[in-house]
């Protein structure tokens, strides 16, 4: 009913075609399966609503023929039959109204429940996707699944599907009643109906062509807006305002032409269908009048028939409009299902991490409570178990890796980090430093070679347990919306307040946190914008510290931190590193000097390894980097 009156987005949306509409529809229905009883009632109520409408109109015929026309002019008309009929009409109409409410109300349950389930499934699935997925998909495209596609799907399920059913039932039952009333007048209806359908098809195909053109023009304009909004300051510095305005006016003019064409065809459908239905109305009156004069139909039939022709065009135009909406929604649903079908991170690990009690003679026993000591629990084929203490030895054996099949990023990397050692990676952007650290925690899987953690191939370790045994401080520190306390606790969910304070002190973050207006209860907004870069880094260090893992991966802070904060961070990092195996990605060479091993990477290969003094003596790439003869970009 008057649907589509307000949908601001539809003007900018082009009609898409799903690849396999039927399969997608089935899958959507599967999602609605938990509500099957309610859905049965919905279908019944829709039928009830449509049929009652048609029935009330049909009763116009006997009303006119039997109770009104014969009574005209009677001195003492008998109204009892008439009033009975009106009562019946009222009853049927009442049932219709009730049915209308019922299916709307039930659909609300079905739709909101189904949408919740779709969203939760999407989110849960997203959590299990490999990092690779996030590398190859922009945030915008994933967000658009949650917003645009889920929204159109919701609109389809809540509006289009029941209305489509309602319209179809109405059209079919009106059609049947028309044949019953007058086959001759029905022929006229069929002719006009054909005319309507042809027009709709014609307009719709033109409309979708112009809409895709509008879409193109719109993306040009939006792209330009985005670029210039980002670059306004540069534009001003170069006094390019007038040039930029001129170019914008040109893009905008193109958009205007495409938009007015696209909207013309979108607008024109309603008046055309509406007026064709008046045409039908006029033709029916004329033909009906003629037939009445020659005595082929009676007045009551004309009354009901005229009413039907008016009620006919609305559902026809509804069907045509809903069809486009349904097709776009199915295309969106297809994208959602494709996302849900993305393969999740594979995990064939069976070695787990357990709390352990280590007795003096070195035997390890698994215990159900936290001891602060951990062991790898290794089940064997013969159903026996063995335990290895968690130490933090990491060994790379001839590791080969590439993000894409044809491009090798790391080639034949072998290196050993003993528990408690500090290993630093040095090299230009793209040399593969970050990639190496992402292999240790199995964000990506190796192509060849092995990585062993405490002697166990990391592929055999359960991913969650492997990651629990590592802690990372990333270059782009991400904090979550929530209090400082919650953010630090993210490293260990069951940490006490005392533990949080302790970790913050360890990371040198306590003093600045205490000086915040609400201290540890200060709420950080999205991405912690109310803190400086350095302060965010300190909180991230505290978060890593509270997790207390034996292996630590540090992606060093960027250059935009001033020297004072940098000194604080360095102190925090140093306390954190004590007694742990540490992999540092160094951007500043001053921080790698005390590393046990410096690994210089170039184009995915290790070209030099050694301590600072050894490498300086070597006088090769590290020496050049260190003395500033070579650019690190």
């Amino acid at each position, binding site marked *: 009913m008057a649907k589509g009156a307000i949908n601001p987005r539809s003007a900018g949306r082009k009609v898409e075609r799903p690849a396999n509409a039927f399969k997608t529809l089935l899958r959507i229905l599967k999602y609605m399966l938990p509500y099957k009883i309610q859905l049965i009632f919905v279908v019944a109520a829709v039928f009830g609503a449509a049929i009652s409408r048609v029935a009330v109109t049909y009763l116009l015929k006997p009303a006119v023929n039997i109770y009104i026309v014969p009574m005209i002019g009677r001195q003492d008309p008998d109204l009892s039959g008439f009033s009975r009929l009106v009562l019946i009409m009222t009853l049927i109409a009442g049932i219709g109204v009730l049915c209308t409410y019922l299916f709307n109300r039930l659909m609300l349950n079905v739709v909101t429940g189904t949408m919740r389930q779709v969203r939760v499934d999407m989110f849960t699935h997203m959590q299990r996707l490999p990092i690779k997925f996030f590398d190859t998909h922009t945030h915008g495209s994933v967000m658009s699944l949650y917003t645009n596609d889920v929204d159109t799907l919701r609109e389809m399920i809540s509006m289009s599907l029941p209305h489509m059913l309602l319209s179809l039932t109405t059209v079919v039952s009106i059609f049947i009643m028309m044949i019953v009333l007058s086959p001759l007048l029905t022929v006229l209806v069929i002719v006009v109906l054909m005319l309507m359908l042809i027009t709709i098809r014609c307009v719709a195909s033109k409309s979708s062509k112009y809409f895709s053109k509008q879409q193109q023009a719109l993306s040009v304009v939006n792209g330009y807006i985005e670029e210039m909004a980002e670059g306004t300051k540069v534009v001003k510095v170069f006094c390019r305002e007038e040039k930029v305005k001129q170019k914008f006016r040109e893009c905008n003019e193109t958009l205007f032409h495409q938009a007015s064409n696209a909207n013309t065809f979108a607008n024109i459908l309603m008046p055309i269908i509406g007026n064709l239905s008046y045409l039908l109305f006029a033709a029916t009156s004329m033909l009906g009048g003629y037939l009445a004069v020659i005595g082929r139909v009676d007045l009551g039939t004309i009354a009901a028939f005229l009413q039907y022709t008016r009620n006919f065009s609305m559902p026809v135009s509804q069907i045509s409009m809903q069809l486009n909406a349904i097709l776009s929604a199915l295309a969106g649903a297809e994208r959602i299902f494709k996302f849900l079908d993305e393969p999740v991170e594979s995990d064939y690990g069976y070695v787990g991490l357990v709390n352990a009690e280590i007795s003096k003679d070195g035997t390890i026993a698994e215990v159900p409570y936290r001891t602060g000591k951990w062991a790898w629990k290794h089940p064997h084929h013969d159903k026996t178990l063995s335990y290895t203490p968690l130490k933090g030895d990491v060994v790379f054996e001839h590791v080969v890796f590439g993000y894409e099949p044809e491009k090798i990023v790391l080639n034949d990397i072998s290196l050993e980090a003993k528990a408690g050692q500090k290993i630093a990676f040095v090299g230009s952007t793209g040399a593969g430093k970050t990639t190496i650290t992402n292999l240790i925690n199995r964000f990506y899987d190796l192509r060849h070679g092995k990585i062993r953690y405490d002697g166990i191939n990391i592929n055999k370790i359960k991913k969650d347990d492997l990651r629990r045994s590592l802690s990372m401080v990333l270059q782009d520190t991400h904090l979550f919306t929530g209090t400082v306390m919650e953010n630090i606790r993210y490293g260990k969910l069951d940490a006490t307040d005392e533990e949080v304070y302790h970790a913050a002190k360890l990371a040198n973050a306590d003093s600045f946190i205490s000086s915040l207006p609400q201290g540890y209860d200060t709420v950080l907004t999205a991405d912690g914008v109310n803190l400086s870069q350095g302060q965010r880094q300190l909180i991230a260090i505290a978060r890593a510290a509270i997790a207390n893992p034996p292996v630590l991966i540090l992606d060093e802070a960027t250059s935009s931190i001033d020297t004072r904060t940098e000194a604080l961070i360095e102190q925090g990092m140093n306390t954190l590193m004590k007694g742990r195996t540490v992999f540092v990605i160094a951007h500043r060479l*001053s921080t790698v000097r005390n590393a046990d091993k410096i690994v210089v990477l170039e184009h995915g290969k290790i070209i030099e390894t050694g301590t600072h003094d050894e490498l300086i003596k070597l006088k090769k790439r590290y020496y050049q980097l260190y003395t500033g003869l070579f650019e690190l970009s």
Partner: protein
Amino acid sequence: MYFKLLTYLGRFKKQAILAPLAVIGEVALEIYIPFLMAKIIDTGIAQRDISFIVRTGLLMIGAAIVSLLCGAAGARLAAVASAGFAMQIRNAVFGKIQDFSFYNIDRFSTASLITRLTTDITFIQNAFMMVLRALVRSPIMLVCATMMAVRINADLSIVFFVAIPFLGISLAVMSTMAHKHFLKMFSKYDAMNSSIQEMLIAVRVVKAFVREKFENKKFNDSATDLRDAQKRAEKIVIFNMPLMNFSMEACLICIVWFGGNFIIQGKMQTGELFSFLTYIGMILTSLMMISFVFIGIVISQASIRRIYEVLNETPDIADTGKDGLDLKDGSVVFDNVSFSYSKKAENLTLKNVSFRIESGQTVGIIGATGSSKTTLVQLIPRLYDVFSGRVVVGGHDVREYHLPVLRSAVSMVLQNNLLFSGTIAENLRWGDETASDLEVRQMTQAAQADDFVLNFPDGYNTVLGQGGVNVSGGQKQRLCIARALLRKPKILILDDSTSAVDTATDRKIREAFKNQLKETTKIIIAQRVSSIMDADKIIVLDQGEISGIGTHEELMKTNAIYKDVFMSQQKGVA
């Protein structure tokens, strides 16, 4: 607010006026048709006058065709008018943003400006189209159809006078009740979306800490919240359809009963009853449409307000320049300058800064993050106006020059600089559109960018993506310097513009400046002392105040901050 916006219609005024007229024509004819139908029945059939039936029938068909043409014309005109209206507003807003000063830009976030120019204007465009068609069509339809009904039979039309207020009031009550729940729903929706966004940004953190289940639980809660909020809001809205049905059926039944009785009593004719039945649909649907249009207008209100925020923002830097005045040299004098971003005396970012730079000198500026280095240099090309004091450039106060004159003489490389989509050569020519290929290459050579540009397969014709994404940080900085050099400025300002360039290349760039830009005043902000050590003058800033001015040697003796920074950096660099 709405009417003021209409002044942006400009050359689309004609369409905006004609569209409603076409719609009025359409409506008038549509209402005329059932009236003719009644005549066919009451005159034609009753008097068995076939020629009357045919004549009137043809008139009806003619009316339907003309009405169709009017409708189509209205559709086209409304589409053109609203698309044109949107274009004009977009131009106005975009143009306004270009006229903004840095102060104005800082007040709006980039994301919010983008939303205003895209989503908000689309909302307004759709609302306007609806106003042109539905808001004209529905009330006229409502009034005319009701008038027709009264004319046919005043007693029977009382049905409508009961139904219209009933439906109208119910719709109004419903939408006000729903509105508040919808607002709540939207905020839940936003909350859920921002948690998804956060998850996308932080996916590595979540995975590294194995917090998938924790995040799932949080999301589950917010999805459930959203479902409940949505149910609460829509529970009210779903009364819409049954209510409409109820009104329609009630009118139909009343008209059949009372109308039937009138006919029996001879007060009315059968055909008139039929036309009454047709008017039910017309009247009640228009009422429904009116309520939709009002909801649409209410929704667009927020967008209109946001557009006005931009349009009403006055650029705080006005071009107060005198004609014909040009910078005579590259000298810069700060005379007791104070500055505040919030324009309040208690919130000063720069406090009483005074210094003098001679034309052609190289000056370094150093200080911790937040010491207002960037603020200081932005006053020179008048990107902001001083709070008090005077900035004198090339012999005159900056406020005495026309902005383009001043800004083309003062070339500045911003801290977070941008390249635009287009080829490298196009980007460089932002500095000087008429520059020859040779000049472009000379400047890129000076900025030490020529070598790597030539190493790209397409050289200077390499196409850069939006924001210059396909060059490294150091390369981008050097291209930005080359672009600034092409302006052949009297004063060149580098705001931490070589932070991603290695020390050796940094040195080469400075040497090129020394040899090729003898006349140009060079002001360099740097984090690295090594970048400015050999400057003629170094200004040390500390929390918006000058802590010391002098050469490297002088400052090492007299300035503790400078010495500290120098020592801490020496530690790293052997």
